[in-house]
């Protein structure tokens, strides 16, 4: 029987992993994702979960264990945060290049310096081009759901790609929220057991990860790129099934809130979307035609959906929770993708980016109101003042 519990995002992730019947888990502690592994270690120790639990001696080793375990045909789970994510960086491309559908939870934490436990998406976003699926959750419930959805998509024979399943550290990872834990039979219907293609097997020897010649490199890159082109279709199928089996109401890529008659929208991914919804309500009461578009997958980036969706509005404020120092948009990161996707759209909205929530800072209703004011001003002027605003740090004339 399904039941509702009040648990943190970390605990929700651990529950999803248990329901997914994983074979191998590899841990290494770092705040704030650690509790996922604390919970899984308890489940394995008390016999609730029949999995191999391995403790790595660092994140690089941790991901290397996952590489090997996946090559042997196991359903694998791991996770990290902040500098733990970047310490394992070398392993990400071999895992996706070898087409191992390893799943890694990332509970975001700001990168150093100096030391900051707060949530910032730069840790995960720095890894976005390594051939892994990537997307964020807004609540512990969405954390739970995304872990199941990602295994299903990543392990699909048409895809065979690893997945970064991300949620904001502290806000989502630590603050408990209501989560519906389904019946195991629902998960079993949605997510069949993993059937590897060519697992390591002494009776049928195969090579994994051999050295190749330069002229063999391009074709492997092409195959990874081609696999990514198939992902949107598989995500759509998975979301349809998920909504049917679990009674949810997800859109595959873009979750819209009060956009029907909106002229301006906030565009963002992750935890702050929750506060943004209240900000939209607040601003609508003041007469502003504003809505919210939440990105559920940044890899693959839903180019066509973005064109179709965002071209309906006059201005889009991309709320950045990661940085791209010296980038084309002068600091914002996600806006690069948004602008590139909109380049061929018949109607292009005005777009600008707002640096907010960096280092784990809270984004308040007042902050959202300030951003909305800038967007409304841009609509009136017919152009954006600049590419990037640092929310809370701009000197007003």
């Amino acid at each position: 029987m399904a039941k509702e519990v009040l648990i943190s995002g970390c605990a929700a992730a651990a529950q999803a992993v248990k329901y997914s019947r994983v074979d191998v888990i590899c841990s290494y502690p770092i705040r704030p994702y650690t509790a996922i592994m604390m919970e899984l270690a308890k489940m394995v120790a008390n016999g609730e979960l029949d999995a191999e639990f391995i403790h790595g001696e660092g994140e690089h080793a941790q991901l290397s264990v996952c590489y090997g375990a996946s090559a042997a045909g196991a359903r694998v789970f791991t996770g990290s945060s902040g500098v733990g994510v970047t310490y394992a960086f070398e392993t990400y491309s071999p895992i996706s290049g070898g087409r191992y559908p390893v799943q890694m939870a990332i509970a975001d934490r700001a990168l150093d310096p100096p030391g900051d436990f707060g949530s910032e998406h730069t840790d995960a976003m720095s890894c976005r081009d390594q051939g892994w699926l990537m997307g964020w959750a807004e609540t512990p419930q969405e954390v739970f759901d995304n872990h199941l959805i990602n295994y299903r998509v990543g392990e699909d024979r048409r895809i065979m790609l690893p997945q970064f399943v991300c949620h904001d550290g502290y806000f989502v990872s630590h603050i408990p929220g209501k989560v519906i834990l389904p019946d195991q039979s629902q998960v079993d219907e949605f997510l069949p057991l993993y059937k590897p293609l060519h697992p390591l097997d002494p009776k049928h020897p195969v090579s994994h990860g051999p050295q190749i010649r330069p002229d063999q490199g391009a074709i492997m890159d092409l195959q990874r790129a081609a696999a990514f082109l198939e992902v949107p279709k598989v995500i759509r199928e998975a979301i349809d099934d998920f909504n049917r089996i679990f009674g949810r109401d997800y859109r595959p890529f873009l979750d819209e809130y009060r956009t029907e008659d909106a002229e301006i929208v906030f565009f963002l991914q992750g935890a702050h979307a929750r506060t943004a919804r209240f900000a939209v309500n607040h601003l609508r009461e003041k007469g502003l035609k504003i809505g919210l578009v939440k990105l559920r997958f940044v890899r693959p980036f839903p180019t066509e959906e973005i064109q179709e969706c965002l071209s309906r509005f006059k201005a889009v404020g991309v709320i950045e929770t990661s940085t791209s120092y010296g980038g084309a948009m002068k600091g914002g990161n996600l806006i690069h993708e948004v602008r590139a996707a909109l380049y061929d759209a018949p109607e292009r909205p005005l777009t600008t980016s707002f640096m907010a929530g960096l280092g784990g800072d809270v984004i308040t209703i007042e902050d959202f109101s300030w951003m909305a004011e800038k967007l409304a001003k841009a609509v009136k002027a017919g152009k954006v003042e600049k590419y990037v605003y640092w929310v809370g740090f701009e000197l007003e004339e």
Partner: protein
Amino acid sequence: MAEVYEVTVWTRGVSMDKEGRDVVSALAKAADREGKFVQAFDNYEDLPDRVGVPVRKYARISDEEIVMRYNYENENPDVVVIVDAALVKGVNVLRGMKRGGVLVVNTNRSPEETLKFIPNKDTLGAIACVDADGIAGRATVDFSGTEGGVDASGLGAGIAAPLAGAVAKATGVVNLESLAAVVANREALKRGYEEVVVKTI
């Protein structure tokens, strides 16, 4: 925005961590049973905790959905609960408190005696003293809840039970019956409710 009732608990890292968390969890779960919107969480910046350091736990209770759920602190607590009375000496435990707030202290001293240690007592509307140590007799310890994990060791078996009862009596924010439905040591809860000494200021 709807009014959010804020409860801030000051406790000590590791040794008294669970008791502090149990106070906020019990109040939030009880209010949830009464149909309120609730939130209970640890202060992330005080963590990872070390033995004996002051750490904060928060509960929030509201008639409507809590807008700023993703925040770090209770900035303006209505109630402050002190799990270890000695904490009032080194820490400004009433920081940010709304005028007329309530302070609940785990102590066998009288309200008059305890007030001598509170420099900014004119903020207070009332002080409530309850000998939670004497009533419950023990502090329970568990390490799994602090870092976002699940504390499965039970709720309110130790000194948190009389403290939660004292909060209910001094503030009326939740009913004793709702607390009794979520707390393990009901006898201690009831005694905390009945034996707390409340002094209006």
